[in-house]
């Protein structure tokens, strides 16, 4: 599993478990063997709790937004000295990648477009771990920079539905010294 995906798995599981505990507690609070009991909860007071809860949600989301800001993949895709240039053209149902063989440890700047419909240019390593993805949009050109560390075969997968043979639109990249 990709390390970011693993982070998501852990974070999502942990928060979900917390949420389920709260929900079970609410569920349990309504059960009583005394069918005629009075409702003694102070709903006014409960309603006042809304503001701290609102602030809590704002703070949590702000932390998440700021903590992940640096990892937004938009910033670092400009052309720079010494990069390898690779052009990627998605078309129903093949990837035209030029050149198809690249060197490790030197940043690769992919120039991605599509000839017909939208495609999704995604690169997985040979162990099926997703490394990065970007949409290939007709009439537009996008750039993404990635540095391959390990030599070997990498799998190029289409991640935007593009028609009948979408699932067969698989290509390869060769990374070798």
């Amino acid at each position, binding site marked *: 599993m990709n390390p970011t995906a693993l982070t998501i798995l852990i974070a999502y599981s942990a928060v979900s478990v917390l*949420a389920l505990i709260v929900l079970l507690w609410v*569920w349990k609070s*309504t059960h009583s063997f005394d069918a005629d009991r009075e409702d003694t909860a102070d709903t006014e007071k409960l309603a006042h709790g*809304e503001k701290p809860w*609102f602030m809590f949600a704002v703070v949590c989301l702000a932390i998440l937004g700021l903590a992940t800001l640096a990892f937004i993949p938009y910033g670092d895709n400009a052309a720079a000295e010494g990069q390898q240039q690779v052009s990627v053209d998605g078309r*129903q149902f093949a990837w035209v990648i030029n050149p198809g063989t690249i060197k490790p440890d030197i940043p690769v700047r992919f120039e991605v477009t599509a000839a017909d419909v939208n495609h999704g240019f995604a690169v997985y390593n040979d162990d*099926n771990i997703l490394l990065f993805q970007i949409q290939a949009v007709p009439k537009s050109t996008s750039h993404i920079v990635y540095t391959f560390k390990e030599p070997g075969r990498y799998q190029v997968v289409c991640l935007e*539905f593009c*028609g009948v043979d979408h699932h*067969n639109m698989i290509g390869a990249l060769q990374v070798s010294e």
Partner: protein
Amino acid sequence: MSSNAFAGHPQMDFPKVSEESRGVAKKLTLYYVIASTAIFLVAGLLGMVLRQSQADIVRLDDNYWYAIMTAHGLGAFVGWAAFAVMGFGFWVLSEVGYTIKRPARMVAMVAWWTMVLGVAGVVVTTLLFNFAGSWVFLYPLPLESAGQWGNHVTAAFSFSVLLAGVSIIAWCVSIIMIVTGPGLQSDKSGPNRLGAAMGLGILAPKKFPTARPVPYPVIPLTVIAIDMIIATLPLAVLLVEMILEAYIDISVDPLLAKNVLWFFGHPVVYLLLFPAVSIYYLLVPRFAKRPLVAGNIIAVGWSIAVIANVTVWAHHLYMDYPTDSIQAAINTGMEPITFALTLVSALSLYSLMFTIYKSRWTWTAGSTALFLGLVSWLLAGLSGVVNATIAWNAFVHNTLWVVGHFHHMALLNIGIVIFGAIYALLPDLIGKKLYSDRLGMWHVWLTFFAGTAFSVIWIWQGLDGAPRRFAVLPSQYDALTAASIPILVVLAASQLIFVFNMVQTFRGKTSAYTQRISLGVSRPKLTSPALQGLVMTLTIVAIAGLAAGGWAIGNANQDKATAAFLPPLEEPAPGGDDNLAAGQQVFVATGCGGCHILEAAGGAGEIGPNLDETALDKDGIVDVITNGKNAMPAFADQLAPEQIEAVADLILDGK
């Protein structure tokens, strides 16, 4: 039904509308709910067919799989979930004292007919005429079918979706007519009434005065009615363009079209959620026998919603950032707005949970469904926060994670609310008792557990990199796909319980158990937390066991050697031909197998000619690869002449 303790309470004791107006609301709601439930059963069946095909039980033809995917998506999302909650909107408004007058009723019937016709058109163009552009019909794919369907079919499909769009707009108009009508009890006119119906009077009572406070259930319906008109109109223009482009030579920029699609595509999610919230606002206080726990901040929340809902679409385009466009800036700006929108959910969840907390809550099939819907709302909302975070989205975008997320939301939050509303309101709507509340309980609990497990499998596969919208998933995902099949059977079986319960209810039957209760024989103490907890635990264990069994079978059948997107690289046999091995490597790396069958290199595509049966000689093959032919691109720039020759040798060797 309002309890005496709250007689005169503005959020518990609503003025009664006339019997005639009540009759109008009943009829409209039943029309919508019955039609949408029929669509649910068909769309659900189509969904089952898709998943079993991925599990290789009865494998469908590739294009037909995508055609069914198109029908399932639009059918379940718009034809079922949206259509059903749209219908309940009329009943909710009637219950809180809003009269449905003749013009609003007629517009509501236009909405019903256009939705039914639109969904029928989608079903016909996909299942009979092979339209398979997916339910988001991402431009220009509908017009680039790779020979699978013609442009007439694209035009007919686009027209059908346009009808559904007209239906949504008509429904919004009808809702706005009702909420700004006499039920509002305002002596202002025009936009001021709309502001009042949106709940602005809670914040500014002098500016938006009404003789009674606006009932909470009215607010989400007003908000979504405003937003869906704004969101649907540009899509309607795009659909008209697609119809025209089927016949004349015009085009749109694909990136612009994508923005237009999602400008509609995000709010349409809330066309499901917001009316569901209004159902919650009506029913949760009834079951809890106390008013909604809410302060003025609820109006702040909904004021954020009305704007944020139509300014977050780009979070569906996080992986689109062409270099010379402003898309990256739009995407980055819409991340915090999306976060702001989740605050509305956070506030609503708080209100609803604390309305239930320590209340004398009645646990019936209906109220249980509403509670379980809240559980899914929270859990699916949290997975939505992952999607909303750009840096995380990069690793889940267009994977099965997203499929897990929205089934968790659409089926297990909205869908379960729909079931809850049916169980809670149908007796009033048709004047007959529910056949069996206990069967209803089994239905909602089983749907919840099986549906959640089903979604969790997708979420897991997505985190593992499994792409969504793959008719055939590569074999590394087989074991988990197999695990979902027994759960799917449980999920389907529990819907049969629902169907049986509904049929009996409409026939006027009541189960022996229901009769005993109505005779005043007290309900046995089967609702203690301990006993319910035990049954829940056993159900969870049983479902986990079934999933584990499915996983074990899938895992045993998996061919580990081919567990990848690409076929395995074969080492050249000792003394074998290096040239053929090179040809195979080039064939695989260049993606030739996406379009061509070639057994020697694992090619399985059926778009281009079958290379195992080619009639060309070596020069002919080299010429086509080098210079291209028809749809086939030229590879002269990409491949060296000796690489092309190696591929030609490989093709001829296999013959």
